[in-house]
């Protein structure tokens, strides 16, 4: 028994070392920076300065919530259709869904910009002159495009695990196909939906690249703000914003987990 636990500690050592070095330590550093001034003295000034960024925060929240909602509306039916198709078709669908993820996010975002830009691919092709890059719509489009697979995959996994007899039992007890969806299948896929929402909302709310490129520099999201702080050397303010964002995300995930309590699986934070 003792030998076994020794073996276990040895086996776990590299992982613990890794986690401490690259997860715990950076978090502590962020915390320290957030509560100190440039000279390293304790200070609450950084936290107090956050009030300046409230409008930016709201804008980020607005765009990411819309993007998440769009992902859910597109993603749920897609995931459902995939889960209900033949095993062969499922493989192809999942492959198609994953394929864009093999391309780097930056390149994908650049490509969208090239396609949608005022003098871009689409405008040239259609001989039109619509203006979309630089609007909120373009940023939302970018978020949806980049993060849709993160919505579809957990829902697909969840729906495909639902016992096929659930559909029959619901129908047997008097549910029309619509009622079957609303009363049985939707509630049973809730853990997948919550995972999907979390996995889209979190990167959307903190993204800076998408808003910089597709926002065309006309507005700033909280991710851009954080990036700007670090680039311009205002490490302490950047750390403070990051810390508050982390806390807010943690709170919202906890709330969502509570929401799906009792469901098996839950979400991986």
């Amino acid at each position, binding site marked *: 028994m003792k030998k076994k636990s020794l073996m276990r500690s040895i086996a776990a050592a590299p992982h613990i070392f890794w986690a401490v070095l690259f997860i715990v330590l950076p978090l502590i550093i962020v915390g320290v920076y957030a509560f100190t001034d440039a000279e390293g003295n304790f200070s609450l000034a950084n936290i107090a300065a956050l009030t300046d960024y409230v409008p930016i925060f709201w804008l980020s929240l607005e765009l990411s919530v819309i993007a998440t909602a769009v992902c859910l509306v597109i993603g749920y039916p897609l995931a459902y259709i995939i889960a209900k198709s033949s095993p062969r078709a499922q493989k192809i669908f999942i492959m198609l869904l994953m394929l864009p993820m093999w391309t780097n996010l930056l390149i994908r975002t650049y490509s969208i910009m090239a396609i949608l830009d005022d003098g871009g691919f689409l405008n040239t092709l259609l001989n039109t002159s619509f203006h979309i890059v630089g609007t909120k719509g373009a940023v939302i489009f970018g978020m949806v495009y980049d993060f849709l697979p993160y919505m579809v995959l957990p829902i697909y996994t969840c729906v495909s695990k639902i*016992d096929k*007899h*659930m559909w*029959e*039992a*619901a*129908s*047997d*007890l*008097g*549910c*029309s196909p619509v*009622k079957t969806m609303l*009363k*049985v299948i939707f*509630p*049973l896929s*809730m853990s997948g939906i919550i995972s999907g929402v979390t996995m889209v909302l979190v990167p959307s709310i903190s993204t800076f690249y998408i808003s910089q490129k597709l926002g065309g520099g006309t507005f700033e999201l909280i991710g851009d703000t954080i990036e700007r702080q670090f680039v311009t050397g205002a490490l302490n303010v950047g750390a403070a914003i990051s810390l508050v964002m982390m806390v807010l995300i943690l709170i919202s995930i906890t709330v969502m987990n509570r929401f799906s309590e*009792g*469901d*098996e699986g839950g979400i991986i934070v």
Partner: protein
Amino acid sequence: MSKLIELKGISKSYDGEKVLEGINLYIRDKEFITLLGPSGCGKTTTLRIIGGFETADEGQLYFDGAEISDVPAYKRPINTVFQKYALFPHLNVYENIAFPLRLKKTPEAEIRERVTEMLKMVALSGFENKSVSTLSGGQQQRVAIARALISHPRVLLLDEPLGALDLKLRKDMQNELKSIQKAIGITFIYVTHDQEEALSMSDTIVVMADGEIQQIGTPTDIYNEPKNAFVADFIGESNIIDGVMLEDRKVRLEGHTFDCLDEGFGRGEPVDVVIRPEDVDVVKPEAGMLTGQVTAVTFKGVHYEIIVDIGGFKWMIQSTDYVAPEATIGLYIEPDAIHVMKKSKYSGKFGDYSSFSDELDQLSDADAAEEF
């Protein structure tokens, strides 16, 4: 009792393979009918067609005189207890049972009253707020029955509902199901591969094999008057011997002419003769109609199971008297113990105990259970 459900010429194939072939069957109101057969015989498919989960390729389904072949499951006054119960994991016991009532927007007070009554009937009072995943198999089974019965269906379909339960619980549930059926007075259509279950519960048994109905009858009819070698072998133990009908009430087998009660066969017609192991008396060799050598004796508690070699054909005999292996014994058979059947495509395939072993029997049972 009037016809409640009628199947006319129902056929069904999957990927070009026929699973049901011209099924004609009617089911009377308030009867307990069992579809019995080995796995792959089409009994579950028949049930699923009645429930509305499958559509037949050919033929019609009538309910109370009206055709319902194309009516979807949710519009049929028929409910199902699924093999693996299919309880809704996101709802507790109370809400699972209340589910059909909530769909119909039944007033809250009535829901409470009816769910409470149902829980009492299936002996689960006090389980209202339990999560269904914490229940044992037998308890889940009861919840499934309560959920299926709460909206007062005309027919309850049960697809091997006791398959996942252990033997003791299974016996209890058999009695319970039968008494529930009597108490509420609706039609039960029950699917099983367990002949004992079928014999002890049913008013009518439908024996199926290879996508066809082999015989329909009461349990005693099916047992005493099997129509062919398949039915004789599947229901209980049988020695099935080749014979020749000499004239009415006279059949010749194993070189001896027996008196029997069967009539209406042609003179000299080759037939299958069924003799149940418990209907054979063991006597002294000189007093026997047939003589043979004992090859195996197994003590079964109530009786001994004796395998006897008679002219190369192995018979099974059940007797309360012990006989020694290798002994030569005589067999005495009363005329009413002999049942004569017409030759069928199953002739010669069943009813010989030369390769018989209990172990094999159990193995194939386990296989059959696996498939569901």
